């Protein structure tokens, strides 16, 4: 009996590759409804979807090159494909929390990082970022394709640089985040705080950043950059250190097994945090935050400012600013802040902090009566 299959349809091959994690079909198989979601978000035909599924999964250290090649082959925009893949993988990872909770961990929290940026005003660091933080910010931009760097698209840059998805929800609240997760087959988060500007959730090397979609664009970008700072500084960098120095500890870090005494000793030597990997932003009744939280938040903000307004670029900008007449520090600071806000699309308070730090580095300080 002759068959009438469409010879260009790779469906039979993609179906047979669902158990092969090295291929997109297997890589996406753990994501609830993953194939359909990707097809819908990228508006792909069935034929394109099957071609995508028969491609090899992108390698973590070649993500830009691999995803760009795949996107060109299946005819979709590469940043859109990268974002869809990031979302699919974080949903698969978060979905596995249910299993972890019942089988291994005590309360489903071990290995989970959750960091929130609430709606209370925060102090921004007013000095140049440490070299390590500046390098991290530079590497984030370098991981993105040129068109993303050219338009300073922070959201796209984060997606290219790290295993993170970005989700914008209107009037961000914890309940909305949990609804979003549950609707996509992931268990809800166990903690709760009030209104949020941003929330980072990371689990088994995958992360999602939720942002209040009603924020003005400059605040939206700052919040995204801040949460990405948490992801890098409090999660991915320590994980990379563990992977490099004590790879066996990764299983403990992720809550797959309980730490032994030897693990604890090795963790201390490798400066790897064991146990609860969670630091939700809890404020005291007076609105202040715990000392450790302030330190962690400062680092994340420092990274955010460096990402949005790179130090060398900032100094170049300020050097080229015309001096307001008559010269006075307050006027100079105001002009510099306005220029920084315009050039880097910063919120006014962040622009002023950044401008003040830049002017100080250029030897321009407030006079005695301006302090």
């Amino acid at each position, binding site marked *: 009996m002759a068959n009438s299959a469409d010879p260009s349809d790779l469906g039979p091959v993609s179906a*047979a590759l669902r158990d092969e994690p090295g291929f997109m079909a297997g890589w996406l198989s753990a994501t609830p409804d993953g194939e359909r979601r990707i097809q819908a978000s990228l508006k792909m035909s069935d034929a394109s979807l099957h*071609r995508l599924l028969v491609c090899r999964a992108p390698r*973590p250290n070649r993500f830009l090159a691999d995803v760009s090649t795949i996107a060109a082959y299946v005819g979709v925009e590469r940043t859109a494909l990268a974002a869809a893949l990031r979302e699919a993988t974080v949903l698969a990872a978060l979905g596995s929390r249910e299993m972890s909770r019942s089988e291994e961990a005590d309360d489903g929290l071990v290995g989970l990082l959750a960091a929130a940026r609430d709606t209370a005003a925060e102090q921004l660091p007013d000095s140049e970022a440490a070299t390590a933080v500046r390098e991290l910010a530079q590497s984030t931009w370098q991981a993105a394709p040129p068109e993303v760097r050219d338009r300073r698209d922070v959201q796209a840059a984060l997606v290219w640089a790290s295993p993170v998805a970005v989700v914008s929800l209107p009037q961000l609240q914890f309940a909305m985040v949990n609804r979003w997760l549950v609707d996509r087959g992931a268990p809800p988060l166990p903690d709760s705080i009030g209104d949020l500007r941003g929330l980072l959730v990371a689990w088994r090397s995958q992360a999602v950043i939720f942002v209040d979609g009603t924020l003005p664009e400059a605040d939206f970008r700052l919040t995204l950059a801040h949460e990405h700072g948490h992801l890098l500084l409090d999660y991915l960098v320590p994980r990379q250190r563990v992977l490099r120095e004590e790879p066996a500890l990764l299983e403990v870090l992720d809550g797959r097994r309980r730490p032994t005494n030897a693990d604890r000793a090795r963790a201390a030597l490798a400066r790897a945090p064991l146990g609860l990997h969670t630091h939700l932003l809890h404020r005291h009744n007076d609105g202040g935050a715990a000392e450790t939280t302030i330190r962690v938040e400062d680092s994340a903000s420092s990274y955010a400012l460096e990402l949005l307004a790179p130090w060398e670029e900032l100094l170049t900008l300020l050097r080229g600013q015309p001096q307001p007449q008559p010269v006075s520090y307050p006027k100079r600071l105001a002009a510099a802040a306005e220029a920084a806000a315009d050039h880097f699309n910063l919120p006014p308070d962040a622009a002023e902090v950044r401008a003040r730090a830049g002017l100080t580095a250029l030897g321009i300080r407030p006079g005695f009566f301006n302090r």
Partner: protein
Amino acid sequence: MSSRDDPDPARLRELHEAVVAGEDPTAPAKMAELLLPALLRRFASARLPDPHSVESLIGLSVARYLAEPERYQPERGPLLAYLWQDVAGDLRNEWDARVRLRQHESPGSDVVELGSDDRNLSVEEEVLDAVDRFDVSSAILQRARDELGQFSEQDRQLIELLGAGVRDTGPYAEVLGIAHLPSSAQAREVNRHKDRLRKRLGVIRGKLSRPE
């Protein structure tokens, strides 16, 4: 007999090398796009247990090849013939399973008509005559034996973990970018990569131990 619609042998050879090398993530899909229509054409006139089973069996066969392309040895014959035999073997098994099922369900019925003589095996001869021959072994496989420097960055990271005696799956899964998958899928893929690397290292070790 050769078909004018057959894929260009040079293109097949080039894609096979790309699939083995694993550097171009789209190579498996491009290869499947060439193989699938060619195999469907080969089996178009074959008598089949049901019209859809051949699509699935061809899909399975192509997927098996893409997942472990090293199992196909170019010096032994053309890729299409290799896959044809794989599909034909699966079809034969399916026929036999149906025959056994029929015998079990209705003893004494028309079992004989579904016997081995009814299989259209002339297709095999046609394919074997038609497709190209690979005269030389894959250049990529040969190069891979030449020096350790040919390992990818990802492979080097995996080898470092192997060398450090790491037994847990997690670190390997992290390097492979599959930490989001269920533990069983991670373990399977990690073991596959460990086996692959051990084999490659064994080959290199053997080569280095031989005098020039």
